């Protein structure tokens, strides 16, 4: 690895100059035993003396003006310790990723929006108090469909987002009509009209995707402890520093007074990044009552109140020559933002894959984000990429079939070399071709017509499909990412990282990086994470950024700590520090390996009462290089044309990520992403009543996430390729494997049964309808 390019502040560390001893091994995650044995303590398990319970009163209407709230009866109920509403906090702004949102606006804009909150001695009392709060609503017309909301005559939605030009994730301006910031986002190059003239075949389609909910195992829960001056938030979030920032700003406290702690995290998938609305109310109640407050959302509240993946509709038109050359692409994607979003961070992201993944000279893509009277939307595992890949990769297969070309050949024919096709900016690394080859070979793509004969008889049809993708998530400015490494006299090592292990094994990964750099066994390294107290500012664990952003910082911190230890050790070994090498707990002189001492012995040289402490910080990505990861999946499916049921039998998943730090952890991300993708593609069908906007399936029974029976055989392939900017080249994997699942399954359904389905989820009714068997 070319150390000079490692993305760190200051001088990049010296190269290791020896084979890896820890990196590349399938080390089991260090928190695994606690989790499976049930001893791991989650935020909801915490009991503090005098703790109160909080409950939130939610609006029953999709759109209404609050004329009056009377909380006096609730306040008078014995056991009630604090009540908040717009009566006492009319202008309060809460923050989510520093995006300001109204806490208690006069106009409530979706079913389930918070109207008041109470803290009481127990949950029954809190529930009774909610019933005693009297609210006079003046109902207003509501709009749920984004295309309807775009019409000039549409009812205007009052979003929860408040524009703030200083926050890159917030809207910079108020909506015009219901259009986000009053404008759409357009990516364009070349000459569209000419491109379509040059085409031999032009295909137009409309693609719909549904909302997707995270359905985390752990329902959101927090315990807030306020001692009159300092606040400690025991949370289930994905980013302790981000929550600290948000809560401090919301409550007008200095950040150092708000400590956020996550001991274990029970699933987030993007939904627990930043301080969510419920936490602001509970924190405020703790301050008012002067007692600890516990809040836990019910499963229906989970569905209704936390921001989920957007529903979209895309009009897409593409032109291709008979030889497979793409000539033009024109598209318009409409996103349902609900009443608010982290959308500021996702502008252009939905259309970016279509803009970049294939070489096409003439492109115009428009992304249109619209507020409606539906719940909040926000981050979720590849939030935009999974949608953008669906319509692009679905359309690519359609074009291939229309011109009689193998879909894999069409993709290779239009392979894009540059990250920016106009400025010709290079990628830091791109091996998508290799990913496509490996994933398709794994399911014998070349002989994919082997099913044709069998498919002629009986209701069961088999087929194979594929899709490629790109993913970003490899370190984005302007986030700060720093880590510390501490070596103690007793020979133990701590990595201090202000991040959260959200179940992906991030703590294990950072311990491995530090162990490799220091030359110790991984079990002598402890990762201290999930606590703003002892750590420096670090990013939230989302956008697949942990390895790419914290990796270089941890490597730098550990290398700096090693340097300090070698300075202490060198004299004892009669050598210069630069001559020392360490591996697996042993420090040696490189030219005379007989001269050595154990890492523990070396640590004894640290002066009594002291420790070695060193820091590392990542620097932002350079601007003249495009950083992406790439991958491809191919799958085999079975379509039952009698029942409309689709089963995914096998998925071969190839992802390019630079370097595999821990194969077991990386493979787990393939499994998780594919399983979640199968839910998105075939099962998860959130339903809202079209008249009232009430969610009809806010539960894990009728909102169907996959069970083990839906899990296919999964063949993960991790493609390594040097990328000197990252820690040992290691880049992102977490979110990416969900991205191509929907298009590859959809394309395989065509291959099996000869039907194109352009809306997600692909449920039996859609299959039977496409087969012409029902209306």
């Amino acid at each position: 690895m070319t150390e000079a390019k490692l993305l760190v502040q200051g001088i990049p560390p010296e190269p290791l100059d020896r084979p890896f001893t820890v990196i590349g091994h399938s080390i089991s995650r260090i928190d695994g035993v606690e989790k499976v044995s049930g001893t791991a303590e989650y935020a909801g398990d915490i009991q503090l003396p005098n703790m109160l319970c909080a409950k939130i009163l939610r609006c029953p209407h999709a759109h209404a003006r609050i004329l009056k709230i009377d909380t006096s009866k609730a306040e008078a109920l014995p056991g009630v310790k604090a009540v908040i509403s717009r009566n006492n906090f009319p202008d309060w702004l809460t923050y989510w990723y520093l995006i300001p949102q109204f806490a208690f606006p006069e106009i409530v804009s979706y079913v389930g929006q918070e109207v008041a909150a109470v803290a009481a001695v127990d949950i029954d009392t809190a529930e009774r108090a909610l019933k005693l709060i009297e609210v006079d609503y003046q109902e207003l017309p509501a709009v749920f469909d984004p295309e309807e909301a775009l019409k000039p005559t549409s009812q205007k939605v009052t979003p929860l987002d408040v524009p703030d030009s200083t926050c890159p994730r917030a809207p910079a301006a108020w909506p015009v009509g219901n259009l986000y910031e009053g404008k759409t986002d357009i990516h364009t190059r070349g000459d569209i009209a000419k491109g379509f003239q040059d085409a031999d075949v032009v295909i137009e389609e409309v693609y719909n995707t549904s909302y997707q909910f995270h359905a985390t195992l752990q329902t959101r829960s927090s315990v807030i402890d306020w001692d009159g001056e300092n606040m400690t938030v025991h949370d289930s979030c994905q980013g302790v520093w981000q929550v600290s920032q948000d809560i401090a700003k919301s409550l007008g406290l200095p950040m150092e007074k708000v400590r956020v702690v996550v001991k274990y995290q029970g699933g987030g998938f993007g939904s627990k990044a930043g301080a969510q609305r419920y936490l602001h109310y509970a924190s405020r109640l703790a301050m008012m009552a002067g007692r600890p407050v516990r809040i836990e959302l019910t499963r229906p509240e989970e569905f209704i109140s936390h921001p989920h993946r957007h529903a979209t509709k895309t009009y897409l038109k593409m032109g291709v020559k008979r030889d497979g050359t793409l000539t033009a692409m024109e598209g318009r994607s409409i996103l349902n933002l609900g009443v608010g979003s982290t959308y500021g961070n996702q502008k252009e992201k939905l259309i970016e894959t279509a803009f970049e993944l294939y070489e096409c000279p003439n492109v115009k893509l428009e992304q249109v984000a619209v507020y409606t009277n539906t719940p909040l939307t926000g981050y979720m595992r590849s939030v935009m990429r999974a949608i953008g890949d669906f319509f692009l990769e679905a359309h690519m297969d359609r074009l291939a079939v229309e011109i009689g070309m193998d879909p894999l050949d069409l993709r290779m024919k239009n392979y894009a070399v540059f990250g920016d096709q106009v400025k010709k900016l290079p990628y830091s690394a791109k091996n998508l071709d290799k990913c496509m080859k490996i994933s398709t070979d794994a399911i014998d793509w070349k002989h994919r017509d082997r099913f044709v004969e069998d498919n002629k008889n009986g209701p069961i049809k088999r087929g194979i499909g594929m899709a490629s993708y790109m993913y970003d998530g490899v370190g984005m400015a302007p986030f700060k990412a720093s880590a510390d490494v501490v070596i103690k006299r007793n020979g133990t090592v701590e990595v201090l990282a202000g991040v959260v292990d959200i179940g992906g094994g991030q703590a294990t990964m950072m311990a491995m990086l530090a162990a490799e750099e220091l030359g110790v066994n991984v079990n002598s390294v402890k990762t201290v994470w999930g606590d703003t107290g002892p750590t420096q500012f670090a990013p939230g664990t989302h956008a697949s950024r942990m390895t790419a952003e914290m990796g270089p910082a941890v490597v730098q911190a550990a290398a700096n700590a090693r340097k300090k230890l070698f300075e202490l050790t060198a004299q004892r070994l009669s050598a210069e520090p630069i001559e020392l090498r360490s591996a697996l707990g042993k420090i040696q002189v490189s030219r005379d390996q007989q001269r050595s001492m154990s890492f523990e012995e070396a640590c004894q040289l640290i002066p009594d009462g002291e420790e070695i402490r060193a820091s590392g910080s990542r620097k932002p990505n350079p601007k003249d290089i495009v950083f992406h990861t790439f991958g491809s999946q191919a799958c085999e499916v079975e379509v039952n044309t009698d029942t409309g049921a689709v089963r995914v039998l096998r998925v071969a998943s190839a992802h390019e990520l630079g370097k595999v730090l821990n194969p077991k952890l990386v493979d787990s991300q393939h499994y998780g992403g594919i399983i979640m993708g199968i839910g998105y593609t075939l099962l998860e069908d959130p339903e809202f009543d079209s008249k009232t906007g009430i969610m009809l399936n806010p539960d894990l029974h009728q909102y169907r996430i996959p069970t083990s029976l839906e899990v296919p055989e999964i063949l993960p392939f991790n493609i390594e390729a040097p990328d000197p900017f990252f820690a040992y080249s290691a880049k992102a994997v977490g979110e990416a494997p969900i991205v191509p699942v929907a298009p590859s399954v959809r394309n395989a359904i065509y291959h099996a049964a000869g039907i194109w389905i352009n809306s997600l989820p692909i449920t039996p009714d859609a299959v039977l309808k496409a087969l012409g068997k029902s209306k």
Partner: protein
Amino acid sequence: MLYEIPQIEHVNARSTEEAIYWLSRYGDKAKVIAGGTDLLSLIKDKINGPQMPIPEVLINIKTIPEMDRIDYSPGKGLSIGATTTLYDIESSNEVREKFGMLADAAHEVATNQIRNMGTIGGNLVQRPWCWYFRVPQFNCYKKGGPQCYAISGSHKYYFSMLGLGVCVMAHPSDTAPALMALGAEIVVAGESGQRRVPIDGFFLGPQEVFETVLKPNEIITEVFIPEQPPNTRGSFLKSRLRGTWDFALSSVAARLQITNGSYDDAKIILGGVAPFPFRVPLAEDALRGKRVDEEVISLAAAVAVKRAHPLAQNGYKVPLTQNLVKRALMSASGLEAEV
């Protein structure tokens, strides 16, 4: 911690008489609880309406000793106590050997965990799984409210395709179609003693608020299935969205009597497509007296869905059900369906 469950009084009944005593005494404040898999989720989700107050007292009948049993008397039939779990039914050798269709149907219910708790009695008297019924905001007809919201709303999955009545729920039970095909009797106890209700008369139509003839102070004590003639063959098939933990989009219980390659008798019951387990006599007639033959079966399957009158979003249930009927009949007839 199940914080959502309110304070409820819980009474362990030691006998059927005691259970009925408490039920009569507490009136509509009380509900019977056995497995609780349906009742507790209704309470937790605060589902209530004029005709379904949230219970304040639960009368536990799992503590009645003779309620949990499977007794088979050769020549007479099978008697299953009402609190027998679905798991015990699906794993009983006698049920599997003599009444295999019921074992199959019990096995198709929900998940392992739910079948370990859920009982046969509860499976028959469970409330609708219509999503308007299962969220608290809609005061629908089945809660004692004025109207059905699903007809003009969203009705893709757990809804009737038969266009009958005020409410368009689809009856969710998997065991009910099998029991109906097997000609079961439901033994009901009330203040005035026991009555035996043939299962054909146990379920009510969609004009009624409640799904069964069970009165508020009555409980099911037993399900009885008569011995089947030796030439009986059966099949239960269920189609659903997910491999487990799902009610039927459509299900079929078929019971055939075949002698010398001809159908002596047939019973075909559809589940998941009507407000009650739906018998299709015309399809049965299409088999009776005919040779066992794929063409005959195809015709019967077509007849089975002839009365279908689907809603705007569930037209797919018609071909789905027709295909299921065909597959069930083929399987029960010992013919290999094309796979």
